[in-house]
């Protein structure tokens, strides 16, 4: 028997192993995820590829705009291209031709369950006092992938619960899941590699490198947004509102001329925070800390009723009285009124205001006020701290108005300029200095959103709403016009600038060709502005979508202002109608 084996002819050499199969779709990678064929560009992240066919792969550490760390182990999937019996992290594994990926097998589920159990092992019982509750990935994933009781016996590891990283950011190290998104963000995006991971194993913490002592970056607020749990907290927002009571409106930051896209989270008629909204062309997923705090101007020191009289003599007046007082002053100085406009106002405001200046006041010159220049950097912040200077210039040019800089006006006040109409109270010089100059004016009428020394110097202050209280658009520094949506009706008795312009025109005996809404103002007046003529006002409006996660009731119970349904856009189950349709 053994002989027979020996004489057996040697086997022919095995054929060479087959090479990789030719791509099914040249130029693309074709693979199968959960039984569905996916055709993706080479280099596409597996998580994104799975998302495109409706397979959700959970993750903590992956962020599309950061490098891949693959340390949370939540995104492990089964792949035919992996070594047998091994799971691969979806965020890190490249997609390969012909691979078969399974995201929902028993093995994957067991892995997800184990990861969740470990993450919650030392997590404090904090939901009831945690700002992240309601928008927390630990909560979402626990209900989806774990939903089992704790098996922990004994106590949890204690760490620092309130370590100040800087004046804006606090870290609760117990809540941290060590995804290192913040570390990577500071390193790769903010270019300030000051955060690091210290310690080993269960005793790991995220902290500022001792060499820095304190987090110093203008972009530190973003680490709060990207933190998937409640470890990083913004002291400005901390303990102020439960996330599910807030409604979100897509809007724009008014902190500088960059035009960062944001969500304004509001409750009632107060804005609680700005969060960056994704826009590849402008701000990616980020915004600056200065911009983040711009919401405060909407809440505080607002001119809620129109005022008449200067300084201490100022008294609140009704809307008809305000129109009457302003008209009388403008009539008394007819032909001698100078016009100043702030580039904080929206395109719609300025369209109506400049039409008012040109047609009702018969002017050919406007002066530009606005906030003084500030610090610029190479990322998002620009020196011009006004959101709509470009828009102002475009509209003035189209309307045949000469734009003159502020100093020319400032020097002429009291000399050639005796009467002034101002759109907006922002001035690029010290407010006290300007107030002193304005004292020499015999008539000073202005629209203003916020009280200041400038408004105290005016004869008539017309209470004006901010951009968050109306629909409209800004043109940012690169000439991109962007729409913002209305969150809530104007506060107090305030009206948008365009409305004041139209009403004053009417009062001065001129019927402006625009009427009921900022949309109609835009439709009526923008065609003559070449930069705005092609702007699709309705289509460009970001969708007023439902906030992800837990949402409040679509009724008054969430603290929305009275009259919301009549005045605003009801947003029920993510459905809302664009205004004017």
């Amino acid at each position, binding site marked *: 028997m053994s002989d027979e084996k020996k004489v057996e002819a040697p086997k022919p050499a095995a054929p060479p192993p087959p090479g990789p199969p030719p791509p099914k779709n040249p130029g693309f990678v074709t693979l199968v995820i959960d039984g569905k064929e996916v055709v993706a560009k080479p280099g596409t992240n597996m998580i994104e590829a799975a998302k495109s066919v409706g397979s959700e792969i959970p993750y903590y550490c992956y962020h599309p705009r950061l490098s891949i760390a693959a340390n949370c182990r939540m995104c492990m999937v089964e792949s035919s291209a992996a070594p047998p019996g091994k799971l691969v992290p979806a965020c890190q594994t490249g997609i390969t031709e012909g691979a078969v990926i399974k995201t929902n097998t028993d093995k994957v589920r067991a892995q997800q369950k184990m990861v969740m159990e470990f993450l919650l092992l030392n997590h404090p*019982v904090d939901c009831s006092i945690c700002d992240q509750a309601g928008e927390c990935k630990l*909560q979402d994933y626990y209900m989806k992938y774990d939903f*089992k009781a704790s098996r922990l016996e004994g106590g949890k590891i204690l760490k620092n619960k309130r370590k100040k990283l800087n004046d804006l950011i606090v870290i609760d190290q117990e809540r941290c899941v060590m995804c290192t998104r913040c570390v990577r963000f500071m390193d790769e995006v903010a270019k300030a590699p000051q955060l690091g991971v210290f310690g080993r194993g269960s005793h790991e913490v995220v902290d500022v490198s001792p060499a820095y002592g304190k987090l110093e970056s203008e972009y530190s607020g973003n680490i709060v947004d990207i933190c998937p749990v409640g470890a990083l907290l913004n002291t400005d927002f901390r303990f102020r509102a439960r996330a599910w009571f807030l409604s979100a409106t897509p809007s724009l930051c008014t902190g500088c001329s960059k035009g960062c896209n944001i969500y304004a989270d509001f409750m009632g008629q107060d804005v609680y925070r700005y969060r960056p909204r994704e826009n590849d062309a402008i701000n990616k997923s980020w915004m600056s800390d200065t911009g983040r705090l711009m919401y405060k101007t909407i809440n505080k020191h607002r001119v809620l009723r129109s005022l008449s009289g200067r300084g201490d003599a100022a008294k609140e007046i009704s809307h008809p009285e305000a129109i009457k007082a302003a008209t009388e002053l403008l009539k008394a100085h007819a032909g001698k009124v100078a016009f100043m406009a702030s580039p904080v106002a929206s395109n719609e405001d300025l369209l109506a205001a400049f039409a008012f200046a040109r047609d009702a006041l018969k002017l050919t010159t406007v002066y530009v006020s606005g906030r003084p220049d500030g610090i610029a950097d190479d990322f998002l912040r620009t020196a011009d701290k006004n959101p709509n200077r470009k828009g102002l210039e475009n509209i003035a040019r189209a309307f045949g108005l000469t734009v003159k800089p502020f100093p020319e006006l400032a020097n002429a006040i009291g000399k050639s300029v005796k009467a002034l109409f101002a759109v907006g109270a922002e001035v690029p010089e010290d407010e006290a200095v300007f107030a002193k100059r304005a004292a020499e004016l015999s008539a000073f009428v202005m629209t203003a959103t916020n009280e200041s020394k400038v408004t105290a110097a005016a004869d008539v202050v017309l209470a004006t709403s901010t951009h968050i209280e109306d629909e409209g658009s800004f043109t940012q520094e690169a000439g991109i016009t962007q729409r913002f949506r209305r969150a809530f009706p104007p506060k107090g008795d305030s009206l948008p600038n365009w409305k004041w312009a139209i009403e004053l025109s009417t009062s001065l005996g001129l019927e402006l060709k625009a009427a009921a809404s900022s949309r109609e103002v835009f439709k009526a007046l923008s065609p003559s502005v070449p930069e705005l003529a092609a702007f699709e006002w309705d289509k460009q409006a970001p969708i007023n979508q439902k906030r992800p996660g837990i949402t409040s009731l679509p009724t008054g119970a969430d603290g929305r202002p009275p009259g919301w349904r009549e005045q605003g856009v009801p947003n029920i189950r993510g459905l809302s109608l664009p205004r004017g349709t």
Partner: protein
Amino acid sequence: MAAAGDEYDPTPSDDELEAHLQTRNMVVNLGPSHPATHGTVRLRIELDGENIVKMDTEVGFLHRGFQKSCENVTWTQVLPYTDRLDYVAALHNNFGYLTAVESLMGVDIPERAKYIRVIGAELHRISSHLTTAGALSLELGGFGAFLFAIEARELITDRITELTGARLTTSYGRIGGLNRDVPDGWNEKVLKTLLKVEELAGEVDTLLSRNRIFTDRTKGTGVITKEAALDFGFTGPCLRACGVNYDVRKANPYWVYDKLDFEVAIGHNGDNFDRYYMRVIEIRESIKMIRQAIAQMPQGPVMVDDWRIALPPKENVYNSIEGVISHFKLVMEGVPVPAGEVYSATESANGELGWYLKSDGSGRPYKVHVRAPGYQILAGLAHMCEGKMLADLIPTFDTINMIGGEVEQ
């Protein structure tokens, strides 16, 4: 213009003593608030003398936006709204709704919970039928039977109160089972109660079923044919009184009805007496069922063990992150019901109580529609009464057992 019949007809009659009354059709309102219509419904009746020429049934006085309200609360928070449908037998609505949600989720509840649901539902069926029979007797002038019926109903209400904590608005049960088990010694108390109920229901039966006045008023009045009843969408005792053998508990058994031995009462004539008698028999059958259920009921949990559906024990909520997350998400976001739609029906005291539910995958219903049995039956009331005597309207209205809460939602 004077209407026909307005003019005095001077033609002399054969009988010189006949009174030539000027008759014209008269329109009267019965309800919306009337002692003989126990429920806020308005019956606009056109009468020719004592005969009903035409009848319009107008509902909506108890409309409270039930279906729309449900869309604004979590799946669990719908439960108290369901109490207010058929408020005479609230457990039918509670359990019917929960069963519909559970079938949409594909959840199988523990065996013990199924038995307790059967016992609760049958207790409330007895309670509802006693009310119907008692009120029928009362409104036909027989006060005694009403007192016996209500005495028995009080005993049942006491047992329901012990079980759920409320006499009327029970809000008992949760998605995935029950919020609490039966109290200690409750089963024995129920068995003793049933003896008393049996005796009192027997008194009602004795007082009414062979009573000449009662049978004269109910037999052959308010008749509806099998075909017409089916066309109107009758279900429950009112349909079975016409001779149609349809009972959801038999046709499509849910909970543990397939393990219980009971008969479905079928009538012949579709008149008021048959509708009344269906209830008398069903009370006996329900008592039989409860005795079997108590005997068969196993020990064990009454709620599914899944923290995506059931609230974790308080101890875990206060002391573990897993418990607090689950509690928070279930309370704030609601039980996640997978996207889809379902029609699910149970046999309530008045017939097929159907729930059409639609979920968009969130914690709140996308759409809730209730097929309340009373609505279709009330729609047939005019058909049963037109051309008949006004006096027969009252027993007919009683035997269809309209409940304002479920008809008008």
